[in-house]
């Protein structure tokens, strides 16, 4: 029976299959797939503390590896599609993904692409004063 081992290359490949199925690259290729963005060692260290996850994975490994050649990447993709793993690792994955420098850089690029072609000027006090002049208050005087 193949068991999940924290530090093995096979485990990393297996989880690469999982997380890249959960967060693939965006269609326009601007947003990276998960394994390109996150530090796999740190990520695995976090999620494989969960004993429940280990038990679940070992059970999966037992059933899936019986009659097939073990392609760990494909195994990961299959496991991800079963949705079991999502609820267990979703928060850790989102945290790792959106904390990554690459994703932040790409989001900033995306923000740049979505701005109008005109340069937006800083809104200064003139506009604020013009807007706030119309502000009114229903105010009780003591």
């Amino acid at each position, binding site marked *: 029976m193949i068991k999940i081992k924290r530090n093995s290359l096979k485990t990393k490949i297996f989880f690469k299959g999982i997380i890249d199925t959960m967060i693939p690259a965006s269609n326009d290729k601007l947003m990276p797939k998960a394994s390109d963005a996150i530090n796999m060692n740190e990520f695995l260290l976090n999620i494989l503390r969960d004993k429940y996850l280990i038990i679940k994975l070992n059970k999966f490994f037992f059933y899936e590896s019986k009659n097939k050649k073990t392609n760990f990447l494909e195994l990961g993709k299959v496991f991800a599609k079963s949705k079991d793993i999502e609820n267990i690792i979703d928060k850790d994955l989102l945290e790792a993904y959106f904390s990554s420098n690459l994703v932040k850089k790409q989001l900033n690029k995306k923000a740049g692409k979505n*701005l109008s072609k005109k340069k937006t000027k*800083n*809104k200064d006090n003139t506009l604020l004063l013009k807007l706030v002049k119309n*502000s*009114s208050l*229903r*105010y009780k005087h003591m």
Partner: protein
Amino acid sequence: MKNKVFDILIIGAGAAGAAAAWNLSGNGYKIMCMDQGPILKSDTYSFSQANWESLKLKKFNINPNIRKLKSDYPINDKNSPISVANFNAVGGSTILYSGHFPRFHKSDFKTKSLDGVGDDWPFDYEDLEPFYDLNDKITGVAGLEGDPAYPKINNLLPPVPLEELGERMAKTFNKMGWHWWPSYSAIATKNYKSRKKNSRSEVNVTYWPKAISNGVKLKANCRVKKITLDKYGQANGVIYFNSQNIEKFQKASLVIVTCSGIGTPRLLLNSANKLFPKGLANSSGLVGKNLMLHPLGYVEGRFNKFLKSFKGPEGCCIASQEFYGTTNGAKHKRGYTIQVLRGSGPLETALSLRKFKNLKFGKKFHGQFLKNYGHTIPLAIICEDLPEKHNSVELDHKIKDSNGMPGIKINYKLSENSKKMLSHGISKAKELMKKAGAKSIVGFGPVRHTGWHLMGTTKMGVSKKNSVVNEFGQTHDIKNLVIADSSVFVTSGGVNPVSTLQAISLRITNEIKNYPKKYFRNYKE
């Protein structure tokens, strides 16, 4: 080493403690301030880090039950729809706060006379005004003069930038004919004193440097266990755990408690003795009672247009006081502030979408995320909470902190008035959001993880029977025991309390400076 006697011992180095220490310093007193938490370098704060969103989930989480740091104490809030938010370190919650800095309104001090609810404070806005002004000057408050909701407020720094989100909402408020104004924010919108532009003003940069240079001795990682009394029933010092967890005694002639609306009653209750079996200075039975929390409603609108709503200082943009105080025709008494916040960062956006099942993994992931990130405008509805005795803080001996001291239990129920007010606020905020052009709107309340504002648990008043302290924070029972934080609040107002609690701390310590005989036994000129 001989135990030195300090003239004044301040317990708690947060917003109120820092203001108190500064104001009393440089007047010839030997002053010590103790805090159960550490001194943190500002470059380690979550706000200063690239991975700030991640840090906010863990060691800079607002919930002490999630942080579980050595400086935290456990809080049993199962009996409350709102959980406590705080931060235990030198600087207190100002290390985490977004910097909202509005003042109370005049009417907040007279709710009984005006609306027949709550109680009247033993002083007015005008009595506190000089201390609001002083606190603003030291802190550096961004805003705009001319707000019709307040008497004249001077010396404001330029207002925080509107950005596209703020501009849209400002125009919407104008279409609705509702009051709005740039948020009063403790953010240096230009270089101010030692503060760089765009930095938040927290007490480790505003009050502490000057207090320490004036000679205040600041002891971090020291948790006070009990305040002790001499044979005359006067405070004579504290028993505390030092940074090595060894129990020590520190003598002091005057003790000032600034541990927050939950920390202060916790300490007083834990200091119970033969003379005060129900808790120190608790002859009224009110220590820990009348807890007020500001039930918070949340409304969020999603827009097709990419608004870059995450841009700008977190939390601070514009605010409306249109429904502040009692609204004619409303089913509730008193009222609320609508605050326009900033959109969440990417991680918070993703986690929130996931929580509400609006983010699926797989091919649709990026599309769903990007439809929301920078496309949402959040509103907070901060409801005035009325004091009710059954809303309380008590010791919980079943849970202990790292020194073996009991944690606390919160007993809190939303009143019918609060429920009606929340419902009104959420409804109005949704109306506003619809007018602003939101394509989808969600709204709910009270939001659980929003118990930042902790007030009322050692109420201020004239009579010994229905208050714990007088208008200058002096406990009725023990003349040299003073409380100078938000636990003395009589009512909660419908705005963030930090500006008011610091002004009160300054007023209280001013009284100590001017009339020391009232506080110190055997005071010699």
